[in-house]
């Protein structure tokens, strides 16, 4: 049992526990500053620091670019990376399956369904006008649609979770629900105008830059609640890792824990998908990366490190997607997949037996 040996290790002192957190925090800070410095518009490093020290810039546009574009974007990257990573970690533990991620329960698919409903169906005819009359519009409409879509799928899964005891069956049901939503979206796409389809496809590419300062406050609040709740769940997660029967014998209410984990994950993944679009691979790759980096399965250690590694990886992806020095940009989803997939492969090759972690 890997877990028990690790628990033994924690007696060796807090130093071993805090060392990786300190290292990762400085990496995160470094990447954060780098993300603020690099961009399409060339801004001298001194000017960037001037902005944060409250001094006037020699070019007014620069401070606006840094404070209104680069800063919210970097913070969004941190929130998205952290939220998706611990969402993935919880799913992998809950289902005791190395392939699980936030998208596996159909949460991402549910969000896509909501967004597709707004963009493809409502956008096609006079209903778009009706929706606008309600006072909803633009980016908030998309965010609400994605969240409602995710919530509906979540309710369905939760309802099923009371009927189905077996986690593997739950996993399969989740994948099937995702497939159904994808099918509905593709039927809509088939009957939609190319322009609407283009808008939808653009959304599926993912975007960190579309979150403005006002929206960021809402996103930060939701993700903050999600991360704190995950910390409180770490004991439950550790117990689940030992097997459901064992956890039950420890006095854990399996059904309630499962419910809590699903709600927290949905909150994390649903909000990020709503604000940034479906961002893949971070949720699967980061938990594996963290486990192999720290060589532990203790969630008390895994959760904070997962947050740091996820946020750092997302910042790195954001820096790459902006292709520093050029005026163009690459879709964030492509970058996370290109970086995430080799990481997963590397870990599988290195550790040979992923099942040992579960």
């Amino acid at each position, binding site marked *: 049992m890997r877990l028990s040996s690790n628990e033994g290790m924690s007696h060796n002192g807090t130093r071993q526990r805090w060392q990786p957190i300190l290292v990762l925090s400085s990496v995160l800070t470094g990447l954060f500053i780098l993300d603020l410095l690099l961009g399409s518009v060339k801004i001298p490093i001194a000017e960037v620091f001037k902005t944060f020290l409250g001094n006037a810039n020699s070019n007014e546009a620069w401070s606006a670019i840094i404070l209104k574009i680069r800063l919210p974007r970097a913070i969004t990257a941190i929130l998205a990376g952290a939220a998706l990573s611990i969402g993935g970690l919880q799913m992998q533990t809950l289902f005791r399956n190395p392939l699980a991620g936030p998208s596996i329960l159909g949460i991402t698919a549910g969000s896509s369904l909501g967004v597709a409903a707004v963009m493809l169906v409502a956008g096609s005819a006079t209903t778009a006008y009706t929706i606008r009359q309600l006072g909803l519009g633009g980016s908030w409409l998309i965010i609400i649609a994605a969240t409602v879509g995710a919530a509906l799928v979540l309710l369905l899964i939760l309802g099923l979770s009371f009927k189905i005891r077996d986690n593997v069956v739950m996993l399969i049901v989740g994948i099937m629900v995702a497939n159904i939503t994808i099918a509905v979206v593709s039927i809509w796409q088939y009957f939609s105008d190319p322009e609407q389809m283009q*808008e939808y496809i653009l959304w599926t590419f993912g975007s960190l830059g579309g979150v403005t300062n*006002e929206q960021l406050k809402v996103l930060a609040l939701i993700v903050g609640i999600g991360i704190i709740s995950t910390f409180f769940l770490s004991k439950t997660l550790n117990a689940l890792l030992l097997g459901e029967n064992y956890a039950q014998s420890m006095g854990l209410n399996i059904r309630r824990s499962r419910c809590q984990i699903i709600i927290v994950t949905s909150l994390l993944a649903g909000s990020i998908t709503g604000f940034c679009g479906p961002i893949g691979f971070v949720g699967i790759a980061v938990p594996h990366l963290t486990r192999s980096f720290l060589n532990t399965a203790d969630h008390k250690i895994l959760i904070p490190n997962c947050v740091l590694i996820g946020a750092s990886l997302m910042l790195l992806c954001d820096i790459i997607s902006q292709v520093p020095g050029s005026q163009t940009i690459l879709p964030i989803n492509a970058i996370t997949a290109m970086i995430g997939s080799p990481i997963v492969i590397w870990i599988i090759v290195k550790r040979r037996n992923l099942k040992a972690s579960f």
Partner: protein
Amino acid sequence: METKRFLRKSNGMKKIQLVFIVLVVLQFSCSQNGKKDQSNYPDFDATKDYFPQKIEIDHSIGFDVVYHKNFKELHLFRHYNDVVDTVSFLLVQRGTPTPTNEKGHSVIQIPVKKIVAMSTTHLGMFEVLESLENVIGIEAKQYVSSEKVRAMVDEGKILEMEPAGVLNIESVIASEAEVLIGVGYPNSQNDEHQQLINAGIPVLLNSDWQELNLLGRAEWVKMMAVLINKEKEVNRKFGQIEAEFDEIIKVVAESNVDSPMVITGIAMGDAWHVSGGKSFAFNAMKLAKVDYPWKGDNSTGSLKLDFETVYEFGLKADFWIAPGSARDMKGIVERDTRYQDFRSFKTKSIYNITGRDKEGGGNDYYESGIINPHLVLKDIVKIFHPALFPNHQLVYYKQLN
């Protein structure tokens, strides 16, 4: 008086002579061509120029017409990539023999009487040619702005071929259409078109969107005219349009207005597509003397830029044209609150092509606007330099409020 009568007489004489010569030649050519042609086309005259009125193409890069005695060669060029792809058709005058067709081009009998026109851009052209009665099918009434066409759909004279977003091949075939004019996109060589071609309905892919200037796009009306032998009418109508267009350019050239800075498009996701420096949109604005951050760029389509790159210019640009689907200032803020920082936002100098756009329906800019390049240009000049045309009211463009 005396001389006049003499002249008239000699004219009559000439006519008789001409008819005589024609008859002789006809007899000669008939014996040359064999009996088959004679029996099938008793009225065919091989020496006659069946198309005395011809068109010339001055602006368009997308098509060309070569005239022969009783048929026209129509070449459609598709400049999708670096390679130019050509599709050719033989337009043969009704009641005359089809020429030898070694290359196997599609043959269309002209004047075409039954046309299915799949884009609203075609409808404006047929309306100008006063040939809407030749149109028997359109995509869907929903997107049509022309009252005439809408009425014709209601009366059942024009059928909707794509009411549910998918081309109904069976209705096209059942309508006995002689030709379908589609829209040529890079991958529009689709199965449905192939099925129609197999069923004997030639598909003409109109790629007017690839034209790089206003007159080039409008000149596609000549391709429509070629199909229905309305060369004379189209030369007159297009000539008028050209004259009005040139008049506006002259007014701008003679004025000494300054060049305000303009940006285009709106961010979609993280990327902001602005009009390229050689694009249709900028070529049109260039005529109205503007300053554009990407005027030195060489792309004919759009330029994909990072949000902050455009934002930097947006802060100081005087005008903002065509911000995507935004219809009012509220719609702009809903998309992203950062747009409020733009100078054009503060001065309410944002314009979109929604002047004649019906929400949930079609935009007349893509219908009659195509064939009214002079009005579109006048709109653009009015936006940037209102003093030059104080009495002009914006038609296709609209100021966001």
